């Protein structure tokens, strides 16, 4: 897939664990894992907004077109 998820890098930069992010964003760890592994077919704007809010970043920092 030409869209890459850069979430792991940002999480390590911010020193936040996946479990914590899942709790803040309000999604399950399983769904966050699907997103981190790049298996997700789509991301809701509301989820993206919550992730950006939690990590204090831009959508472009998380998603990268390769």
């Amino acid at each position, binding site marked *: 897939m030409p869209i890459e998820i850069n979430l792991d890098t940002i999480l390590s930069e911010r020193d936040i664990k996946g479990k914590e992010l899942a709790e803040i964003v309000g*999604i399950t760890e399983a*769904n*966050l894992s*699907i*997103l981190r592994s790049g*298996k*997700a*077919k*789509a*991301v*809701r704007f509301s*989820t993206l907004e919550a992730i950006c809010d939690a990590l204090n970043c831009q959508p472009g920092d998380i998603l990268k077109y390769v």
Partner: protein
Amino acid sequence: MVLKNLIDLLFILMVPGILGFIFILPFGMFNNTIGNVSVNGYEDVMNLPFFYWVAVIIGMFTYSMMLFALWFLKKSARFFMDNNLLKEPVSRNLNKSGLFFIITAVGAMGSYMAIWIASFDDSGVSLQYGSNLFIPLFLAIIGLFFKMVANTLTNARLLKEENDLTI
């Protein structure tokens, strides 16, 4: 499109059959032609006209195709019991069942055609109207309907997968 046309055709062909209830049944007009043909065929089975043999062979082929259709329908039906309609085997087997029902319909039509052609020797060319024609049409409608349902279930499964992977 084909399914709709077949449904329309079957409906149009069946409507005149109502006239049979009105005009034939009250007068008790029955004949025993079928009984005679059956007895003659049994006594003189080795000397049947060529097209009767064709009809018999096509009939046997059609019967086995119908069994295949029912076999695949049975395989799909297992999942209906657990309400697992969106499993991949359901749509796959339903699609195969529909295909075999269509082949059965074509075979049944071929068999009736062969009997019709064979009857030319006995009574000359004649056009007949009867319920024999409805069976292949109905089978074709069932087959196409199953294929359409299989296609719908495949689309539904893909949509569900996509929905499940939307975060």
